[in-house]
Structure formats: structure tokens, C-alpha cells
């Protein structure tokens, strides 16, 4: 009975994991990169230097918007924080037709950013649940489905694992299929709480989309639900009475006094320049685990606090903390690295699981020289997913440095470059003999990551050495991670080239170990 449960769970684990494994690998990898979204964006806009404090930035933003969009219904200002130096502005309605809002990014000097056009780390963040080249809504359903399969795979995987404690620390190299199983187990088990948390909370981030029925049963339109929950300032018509905005920095100081000295993360101003103006300050996502921070509202004309912070209900508080745990915006740099490393572990877990599907079946093929179609398909898709995505991300960074600065739709072309490289590797992996395909594609990916460091040093004044001297840790960290990724893919390529020998050596798998000299 017990064994049959384990067997059926093993079956479930194998196929639930395989079906969405390739997508999950991409989601895990880009989601992990998104923990350093701001740092990646900083790296991808080397023109922007220096840092900015929220008070000055807010003042600059209000000045800028007062000149650019004095008649807008609302201004939304996302302030810089310890990780990002820029201020993001949105305002509506937009001057342009067909757009609901306009946006701008201000550099620390308060002028509009004149850096190269790029989507930066934001693209990797969005890709991990919106994918690309497809309607966002489909992508989110697809990623949600994948996350549910992931949850099933995690739970069935725990039941399937025969010796979860005995093999806790076990990783043996050079033993073919056994080594893959060890690697899969070690990456999965040792960060199991993280994997469970990230998968579940990932689903929670889009829960109202995946399970809309609760809202549908109680509200006429979903919008009513969100409005009643996340009360933004009520929409009031402009009075037409021109009134200058009270100083925002005074309101921010007052808010900081409410929040143990922490500055707000964003400022929303409705009806700016009017006597009905209202200013809403939201606490920064850096200051609490919960992502739905506290809100204080001020009267725009007098600067008086009109709506003190309201406590959230337990359900909303839970949701807020879960999304916060997923996104990790509250994490200081130490915890951020732990998040990143755990995410890498998850990526390796998914990747090693995919490879194991083939490793396990290769020895049992009726004719190993000519595997059946399904086997070949999985084998080739694995190459495309693992080496291909790596090469794609490396190319995305390289394109950022190498595409002409004045290029039309430059940001889009950076993204296109990523998918072109990804497809090219997929194609290369599909037509070459499979062993060579692994070695070559992993080797190319390693070379691409390695190339980033010298290319950065040659095309900007912020290369690894210069950044090291300047103590610019975001840049140093980025370059070092690129070198480590190059080393990792290079190591994998070397292992893949040696794998030929271990296929013939697999029969001698049980020979006694050499006695230590």
C-alpha cells in the first residue's frame, strides 16, 4: 500500500514536472534575476550616476510635473530608494491618443533621464509572469497553471523521495543518473521551505485573477471591489479655483514621523494645482514585509492630514504579507542575496529534474542509438530551455551595451535580441548530435556571459576595475555574477563533454571505491 502510493506519486511527480518544466525553468530563472531588478536596471543605464534622496526627488518631481502636465487628473510619483536612483512619474490623462497615461523617469539631478533606452531589469521581472510576444492575460493563465503544477510536483516529490533525511547531505559526482538525482534532491530539499513559499505566494499574487468567483458573486464589477479595498482618493471634479500645492516635503516628514522615520515610497497627487487637490503618501515597500503598505492622505491645498492610516483586515493583511514574501522588496542586501541563491537553487532543481527525465530513460531505451520521438523531443527542448535561456539573458545584457545608442525602438530590440539568441541556441541544439549539442550550447552560453565583463569595460567607463576602485558595488556585483554564471555554464559544458565516458563507465558503477591512499 505504502509503496503503491509512492509509485503513483512518483508518476505524478515525473509528468507534472515535465509538462511545465521548461516554462517553470524560465519563470524561476527570470524571477530570480528580478530580485536584483533595480540593480540590473542601474547596470543597463550606465549614464545614470549618483543617488537621490526621497525629499529632493519629490520636490523635483512636483516641479517637473507642474511644468509638463499641470492639468492632469493625477500624478503618480514613485520615489527613489536605497537601491534605485531614479524617480518614476506617471500622469493621466495622457496627451497622446490611445494611451491612458504618460510616463517619465527623472535622474538624480531632477531632469528627465537621457540615458539609453532600455527596459532593464523590469523586463526580466515582467517576463516571469507576463512572458512576451503574447497577450498578457494568456501568459498569466499559463504561468499560473505552471505554478499549480509546480505545487503538485513539490508535494508529490516529497512523498516520492525515499530517503529524505538519509540523503539530506548526499551529492555524489560522476555516477550518471544517480548524480542527477542527488543534485535534484539536494537543491530541492535544502531549500524546500523557499520553494513551497515562492510557488504558493506566486499564485497568491494573481489569486483574484485565477479565482475570480468570490468577487464575481459579491460585486457588480471587479473594479468596484478593488476600489473599495484599495481606497485611492475619491474622484472629485476640479473646482477650477487655482491653488498652489502645499509643500510636499512637509507632508513627507509628517508621514515619516508616523512610520518610525521611514520615508514614503510613492506620492499620488490628484487634481494638482486646484483647491480640491489631494496628496496620498504610501509607505515604501522596503520598510515592511507586507507589500500593500500604509497610506496617509493629505489635503493638497492646506497640507493637513485628512485620512490617517487605516488598519487592514486580516485577509488583506495576509495577502499583503504573502505577496511581500514573494517579491522580497523588504529585504536588505544580505537577505536579498539569500533570496537570489535560493532562487538559483530552484532553477537548478527544475533544470536537473528535466535532465533527469532523459538520464533515467536513456539506459532503458530499446535502441539507444535511435531513441523514440518523445525522448528526442524532451532532450532537445531541455537544451533549448536551459542553455537557450542562459544565452538569451546574456545576449540581452550584451545587446544593451552593443546596440547603437540612437537606434529606433532600442529597448524592444534588446528584448528581440534575447529571443533571437534563445531561438538560435534552440535550433543549434536541435540539429547537432545530442552530446555535441549540449557541450556546444553550454559552451556558447558560458562564452556569452564571460564576454559581458570585457564588453562592459570597453563600451562604458564603468567596467569591473573602475567600479571596484570607485566602490560601486551594484556594478561590481553584477560583473562578478556574470563571471560566476560563465564559470557555471563552462563547468556544465565540461561535464557534458565528459559524460560520454561515464556512459560506458556506468556498468562499472558498483565497483568498490578506490581505497584512500
Amino acid at each position, binding site marked *: 500500500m505504502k509503496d503503491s502510493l509512492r509509485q503513483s506519486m512518483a508518476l505524478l511527480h515525473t509528468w507534472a514536472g515535465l509538462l511545465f518544466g521548461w516554462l517553470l525553468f524560465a519563470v524561476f530563472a527570470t524571477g530570480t534575476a528580478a530580485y536584483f531588478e533595480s540593480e540590473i536596471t542601474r547596470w543597463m543605464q550606465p549614464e545614470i550616476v549618483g543617488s537621490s534622496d526621497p525629499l529632493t526627488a519629490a520636490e523635483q518631481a512636483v516641479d517637473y510635473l507642474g511644468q509638463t502636465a499641470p492639468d492632469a487628473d493625477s500624478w503618480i510619483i514613485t520615489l527613489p530608494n536605497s537601491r534605485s536612483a531614479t524617480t518614476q512619474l506617471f500622469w493621466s490623462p495622457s496627451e497622446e491618443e490611445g494611451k491612458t497615461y504618460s510616463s517619465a523617469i527623472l535622474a538624480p539631478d531632477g531632469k528627465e533621464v537621457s540615458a539609453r533606452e532600455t527596459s532593464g531589469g523590469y523586463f526580466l521581472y515582467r517576463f516571469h509572469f507576463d512572458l512576451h510576444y503574447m497577450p498578457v492575460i494568456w501568459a498569466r493563465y499559463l504561468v499560473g497553471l505552471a505554478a499549480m503544477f509546480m505545487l503538485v510536483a513539490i508535494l508529490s516529490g516529497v512523498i516520492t523521495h525515499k530517503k529524505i533525511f538519509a540523503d539530506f*547531505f548526499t*551529492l555524489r559526482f560522476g555516477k550518471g543518473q544517480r548524480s542527477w538525482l542527488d543534485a535534484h534532491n539536494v537543491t530541492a530539499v535544502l531549500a524546500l521551505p523557499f520553494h513551497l513559499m515562492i510557488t504558493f505566494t506566486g499564485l497568491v499574487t494573481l489569486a483574484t485573477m485565477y479565482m475570480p468567483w468570490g468577487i464575481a458573486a459579491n460585486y457588480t464589477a471587479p473594479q468596484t471591489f478593488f476600489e473599495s479595498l484599495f481606497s485611492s482618493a475619491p474622484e472629485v471634479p476640479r473646482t477650477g479655483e487655482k491653488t498652489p500645492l502645499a509643500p510636499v516635503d512637509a507632508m513627507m516628514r509628517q508621514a515619516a514621523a508616523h512610520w518610525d522615520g521611514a520615508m514614503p515610497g510613492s506620492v499620488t497627487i490628484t487634481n494638482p494645482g486646484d483647491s480640491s487637490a489631494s496628496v496620498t503618501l504610501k509607505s515604501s515597500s522596503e520598510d515592511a514585509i507586507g507589500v500593500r503598505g500604509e497610506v496617509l492622505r493629505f489635503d493638497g491645498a492646506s497640507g493637513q492630514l485628512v485620512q490617517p492610516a487605516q488598519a487592514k483586515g486580516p485577509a488583506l493583511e495576509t495577502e499583503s504579507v504573502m505577496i511581500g514574501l514573494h517579491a522580497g522588496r523588504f529585504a536588505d542586501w544580505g*537577505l536579498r542575496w539569500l533570496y537570489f541563491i535560493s532562487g538559483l537553487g530552484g532553477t537548478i532543481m527544475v533544470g536537473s529534474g528535466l535532465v533527469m527525465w532523459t538520464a533515467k530513460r536513456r539506459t532503458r531505451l530499446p535502441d539507444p542509438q535511435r531513441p523514440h520521438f518523445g525522448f528526442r523531443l524532451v532532450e532537445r527542448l531541455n537544451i533549448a530551455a536551459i542553455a537557450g535561456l542562459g544565452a538569451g539573458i546574456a545576449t540581452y545584457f550584451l545587446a544593451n551595451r552593443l546596440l547603437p545608442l540612437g537606434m529606433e525602438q532600442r529597448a524592444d530590440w534588446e528584448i528581440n535580441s534575447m529571443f533571437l539568441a534563445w531561438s538560435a541556441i534552440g535550433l543549434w541544439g536541435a540539429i547537432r548530435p545530442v552530446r555535441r549539442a549540449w557541450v556546444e550550447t553550454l559552451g556558447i552560453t558560458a562564452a556569452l556571459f564571460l564576454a559581458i565583463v570585457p564588453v562592459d569595460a570597453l563600451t562604458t567607463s564603468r567596467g569591473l576595475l573602475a567600479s571596484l576602485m570607485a566602490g560601486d558595488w551594484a556594478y561590481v556585483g553584477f560583473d562578478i555574477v556574470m563571471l560566476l554564471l560563465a564559470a557555471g555554464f563552462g563547468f556544465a559544458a565540461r561535464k557534458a563533454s565528459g559524460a560520454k565516458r561515464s556512459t560506458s563507465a556506468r556498468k562499472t558503477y558498483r565497483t568498490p571505491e578506490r581505497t584512500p591512499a
Partner: protein
Amino acid sequence: MIHLLAIVLSLVGFAALALAMKRHQREVIGRALTDKERHLTRSAGALAIAASLAVAMAAFGAGYGAVAWFGYMSVAAWIVVAALCWHARLKS
């Protein structure tokens, strides 16, 4: 700095837990520990890991400390795995 201290505590803890296992005893010290030694090692390991949580919670508060603690444990356990791998390679 607190992060570092807490990781070291977790690391000591998981290293002790690994040493309390027969398989790794043979690999690392070449003999099996006595029952008494094994119990002692295991308790010390559990204690060090608990201390890591205590340090994190005292420094960062209960919520933040608990989140960080899971991170410390994963990283520490992976370091132990890597060290055992490295040790096995040196020996062969």
C-alpha cells in the same frame, strides 16, 4: 554582520547534524561515532541552528528574522554538501 554570524551558526549546526550521520562519519573521520557522541553532536547541531534563529529574530524582529533564517539554513546546508563533495574528491 548579523547575517554572517547567523549563517556561521547555521553552518556549524548543519555540519554537526551531518557528522551525526553514519554515512558521513565514515567519510570524514573514518570511524563511526559512539551512541553518546552521536547524540551529543546531534543536540549541539540542533542547538546551533536554533541559536541562528534566535540571533536573527533578536536582530531583525520575529517576521524578518524567520524569513532570513530559512535563507541561512538553505545556504548553510548547501555549503555542508559542497564541503563533503570537496572532501570526497580530495580523498579519492
